[in-house]
Structure formats: structure tokens, C-alpha cells
């Protein structure tokens, strides 16, 4: 366990930087986590992050990348529902990296 400092508030994260308590998440924390990885979040990033949070609220899991890609395509359009688009946004792996900034646990089956 470790803590990161987000504008004066200490937030607990696990050894891989995922938020320990999902309920404390806010956009500031998401942005800050991205900054640590040298990633600046644009509206396109937020679109995916918000989608993941909605998916988690509904199903209580973070979807695997294959499922995410398909679901994004359905919701946000074919031009976004492909690995190329998602990997450009999240080069460390769309499910893994976007889940982190979304304050969700690492997707099930993700190693």
C-alpha cells in the first residue's frame, strides 16, 4: 500500500497504483494518477473512463479489453470501438490503464 498526494489530500493506492477505496474517486484523482504516468487526459480519454465507471456500476466488474472494445464501439461508434484507437489513448493497455484512472480495480483476468 502507498499513498499519493492529490492537491493536499492523501489518497491510498495499491502497489500498482490502483485506488484502494473506489468511493473516494473524483476526476482530480483520475487526472493526478495520469500525470504520474506522464499521460494528459483529454475529452477522448474521459469518454472511455466514464464508460468504464458506468459499466462497473451496472455489472460490478471492469470489463476485459475485448468486451470493452466491443461495448465502446456500440456506444460511441465504430471509429472508437477498435484496439488501435483505444491503445493510442491508453498505451499501457486500455482496460488496465483506463481502469486505474477511473478508480476501478484491475480488470478480472488482467495480469
Amino acid at each position, binding site marked *: 500500500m502507498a499513498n499519493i498526494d492529490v492537491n493536499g489530500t492523501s489518497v491510498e493506492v495499491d502497489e500498482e497504483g490502483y485506488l484502494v477505496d473506489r468511493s473516494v474517486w473524483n476526476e482530480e484523482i483520475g487526472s493526478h494518477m495520469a500525470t504520474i504516468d506522464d499521460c494528459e487526459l483529454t475529452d477522448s480519454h474521459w469518454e472511455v473512463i466514464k464508460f468504464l465507471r458506468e459499466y462497473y456500476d451496472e455489472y460490478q466488474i471492469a470489463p*476485459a479489453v475485448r468486451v470493452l472494445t466491443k461495448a465502446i464501439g456500440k456506444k460511441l461508434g465504430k471509429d472508437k470501438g477498435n484496439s488501435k484507437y483505444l491503445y493510442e489513448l491508453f498505451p499501457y493497455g486500455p482496460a488496465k490503464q483506463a481502469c486505474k484512472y477511473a478508480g476501478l480495480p484491475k480488470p478480472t483476468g488482467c495480469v
Partner: protein
Amino acid sequence: MSEGTTKQFLYVNRKAPHGTVYALESLEVVLIGAAFEQDVRLAFLDDGVFQLMKGQDTTGIGTKNFAPTYKALGDYDVNKIYVEKESLDERGLTEDDLMPLTYEDEDDDWAEKSSIKIVSRAEMADLIDSSDVMFNF
């Protein structure tokens, strides 16, 4: 994944959902295994039928309510879910007491279809007999 043969995997769920970790563990293995593109079937019998009940609420026992996750199985292309009729009957349950689980059929213009099939004990035995790999939870 184009190489190799596809095997029939059967995950057999026999325990009530929240008293032990079996149900959640089974679900996680299924979701992970779904990535390997095998022929996956889920069987629910004995107290395992309770895992699919509508309106589960774990607030009182302070554990995660993973029941909504069964609804994601369709997204993972896991859409062969067999529930044993005798097990339902013995517990005073019917299909209406279960959560609707659906998938979109790619070969039928993405029509939404039910993943749940109610089978008799004899059919369940055949299902177990015909599977290549069986996981018991």
C-alpha cells in the same frame, strides 16, 4: 487462438452464493476462461440455483454483491446457462425468480436472446457426460 481444438468446458455450480467464496470464484474463472474462446457452459444445480436469484442484497453481510456480474456474461460470449428444474422445484423456485440473463446473437442481427435454459436432471446428466472438461464449484 486459431490453432488447437475447441473443448467443451462445463462449470458446475452447486452452492448458495454468499456463504462461501465458491460462487464468486467460479464466476471469476468463467470470465477469465472466456478469453480462451472455448465452448463454455455453466450449470446451476442444488443450492447453486440461488446464485441466479433476482434481488440479491448483501448489505447486511458486508460483502460485495456480485450478482449483477452474471448479467455481463453475455458480453463475454458466455450464453449457455443451464439451470436444473428439479433443483428449482425442490426450493420452491421457478424461472421467474431468476435474473433475466441475455446475449445478443451475432448471427441473427444482434437480436437479444435468453441465455438461460431450464433442463431436467436427466438432461443435466447428459450435459455433464458430454463435456470434455468439468470444473466443480
